[in-house]
């Protein structure tokens, strides 16, 4: 970020450049489609058709997007503090316990609207607790949060296998999963949200946690841009030295940010467990924690960018299922490639096209805003 690029208009910075990076990522993905002998154009149209063509498709798209809003926000919040939380996957996985345990305890005696707050609280607390340890280790012991969160993903995965196989599995059952929840542990679907548009979500598990995700996005915006805590977090992210100079308590901010990040990642567990499968299974996170990295990078760590980026990845997941159905050569692993390419071009290579674009805008003439002023850090 310290590279001395000329200041560009905001819409170029936040709109055009991410878009170009995205287009390049998709073009490279198109090459892979060509390499397996299919037509990228047909794949693209199948993708759009599968994701938007009918009510159930839209329902699934938004269901996946819900996961990615949570994990994208989680990564973004940490980014603002200069922390790279790769542990969303593990935090969401362990937070499944925070969802499942209150439900297993309450679902037979309470209606869903009593169970839901308990599950939200549970997931956020467990997710925050799982992120607290790397945060604390970074703040107090100087161990790098990237490495510790990677390690914690693996520890989480071992822990959850143990818990599901040896503790929570009902007696006499073979599958490593909890019992199916009763009515009280099931979130209502949001068919009423789409039916005014004449769309029927069919069997899609589009549920209330989508609205919770939007609320979370709003809360993140308020906290990061409209509170003192958020200001301190962003100061830390921009310049830890300046933050220290201003008397901001570094370790406190690091720990709080990581816990917020973990809580957001943790709440993702509500969607598949309480909103869809109504039981906790092995590997229910299915990589959503990692998709969050791509979503946060594409959305420029701003909730207004993250929601559409999450929906884009929802489209990829749902449309990808459609492609793999129609084109046997292309399985859903195609999404993994696209995800990797988006991370590569929108994250690691984000400045690759910037010099060219800067020159382009500079030659456009002496339009006042393209004056070469040093970028503010």
């Amino acid at each position, binding site marked *: 970020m310290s590279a001395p690029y000329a200041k560009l208009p905001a819409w170029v910075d936040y709109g055009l450049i991410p878009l170009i990076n995205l287009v390049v990522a998709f073009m490279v993905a198109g090459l892979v489609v060509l390499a397996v002998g299919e037509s990228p154009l047909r794949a693209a149209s199948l993708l759009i058709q599968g994701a938007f063509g009918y009510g159930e498709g839209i329902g699934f798209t938004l269901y996946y997007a819900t996961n990615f809003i949570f994990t994208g926000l989680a990564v973004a919040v940490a980014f603002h503090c200069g922390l790279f939380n790769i542990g969303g996957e593990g935090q969401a996985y362990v937070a499944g316990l925070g969802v499942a345990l209150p439900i297993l305890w309450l679902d037979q005696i309470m209606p869903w609207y009593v169970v839901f707050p308990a599950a939200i609280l549970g997931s956020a607390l467990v997710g925050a607790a799982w992120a607290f340890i790397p945060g604390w280790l970074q703040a107090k*012991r100087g161990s790098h949060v990237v490495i510790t969160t990677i390690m914690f993903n693996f520890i989480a995965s071992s822990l959850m296998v*143990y818990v599901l196989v040896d503790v929570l599995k009902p007696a006499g059952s073979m599958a490593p999963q909890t019992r199916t929840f009763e009515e009280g542990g099931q979130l209502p679907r949001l068919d009423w949200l789409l039916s005014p548009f004449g769309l029927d979500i069919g069997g899609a598990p589009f549920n209330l946690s989508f609205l919770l995700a939007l609320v979370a996005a709003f809360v993140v915006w308020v906290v990061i841009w409209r509170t003192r805590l958020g200001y301190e977090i962003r100061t830390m992210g921009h310049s830890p030295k300046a933050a220290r100079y201003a008397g901001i308590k570094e370790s406190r901010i690091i720990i709080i940010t990581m816990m917020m990040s973990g809580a957001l990642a943790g709440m993702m567990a509500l969607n598949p467990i309480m909103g869809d499968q109504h039981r906790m299974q092995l590997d229910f996170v299915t990589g959503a924690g990692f998709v969050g990295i791509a979503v946060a990078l594409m959305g420029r760590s701003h909730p207004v960018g993250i929601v559409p980026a999450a929906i884009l990845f929802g489209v990829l997941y749902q449309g990808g299922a459609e492609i793999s159905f129609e084109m046997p050569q292309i399985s859903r692993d*195609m999404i993994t*490639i696209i995800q990797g390419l988006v991370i590569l071009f929108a994250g*690691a*290579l984000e400045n690759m096209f910037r010099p060219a674009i800067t020159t382009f805008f500079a030659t456009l003439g002496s339009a006042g805003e393209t004056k070469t002023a040093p970028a503010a850090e």
Partner: protein
Amino acid sequence: METFDTLIVILQSTVRVSVPLILAALAGLYSERAGIFDIGLEGKMLAAAFAGGAAAAVTASALMGLAAAIFVSVCLALVHAFASITQRGNQIVSGVAINFIALGATVILGQAWFQQGGRTPQLVEGARFSTVELPFAAEIANVPILGSIYSNLLSGHFLLTYLAFALVPFTWWVLYRTRFGLRLRAVGENPGAVDTAGISVTWMRYRAVICCGILCGIAGAYLSMAMTAGFVKGMTAGKGFIALAALIFAKWKPVNVMFACLLFGFLDAMSIRMQGNALPLIGEVPVQLMQALPYILTVVLLAGFIGKAIPPKAGGVPYVKER
């Protein structure tokens, strides 16, 4: 005698599973000592395993497989280098991206080329590496203790196994006894000083990352062409991250890397061995705990509770020439 035989068997499988860890961790050592963090070890290893398996299946030659594995791994390493050295991008983000691309591409291409659900065809004799019998291994197998150690533990491994262990002192020699090694370490600690001395930081780092690619390529080839006969999707199964953990555990030193990898390999071998068996003194330990142990140990080490792990100073920071 029976306990002794069990021990030999466990140590034998320790060596077997440690080899890809040693190769990958040494790969990470070159890169990280030069100041380029690499969490893409997993992806490079996976891509190399696939390329090796695929090329060996097509050409029926183990050497061609190895060459393909190294080539693909180096290509990915160059992508990482371009992103993090030339474009000064975030090294962690780039590494994460490479892991995803490799994970997806190996399955898609594998399915498209071989139609076996992402596997490569079973490799025939000659297309995979075979084991090497050391001289007189069969003759002295019956000598008590020593014979068993020699013929079962030391002999009968793949050529790549011996190569991996030979690379440990070789890496030590390169890093600490050659000019290249001195500069490589310097560029990871204080690139400004190296630049002042008139040596190109960029070129130095590129070379280090290429070394990393070559070693990851060999590690991948070992997985798909020696340990097993063919590529299976996702076959690295976190080994790249264990190697990363071992590298930190070894505090970025070559000989320590070998011992850390052997330790983690031993834990792995034990966890398979111990399933359902009780340990003396402790009782039955959940297998999952054994599997998580390398990661837990690394976290504890990183926290400085058992010594401090200090990474190369300039690690993770792109070098910007002063203007």
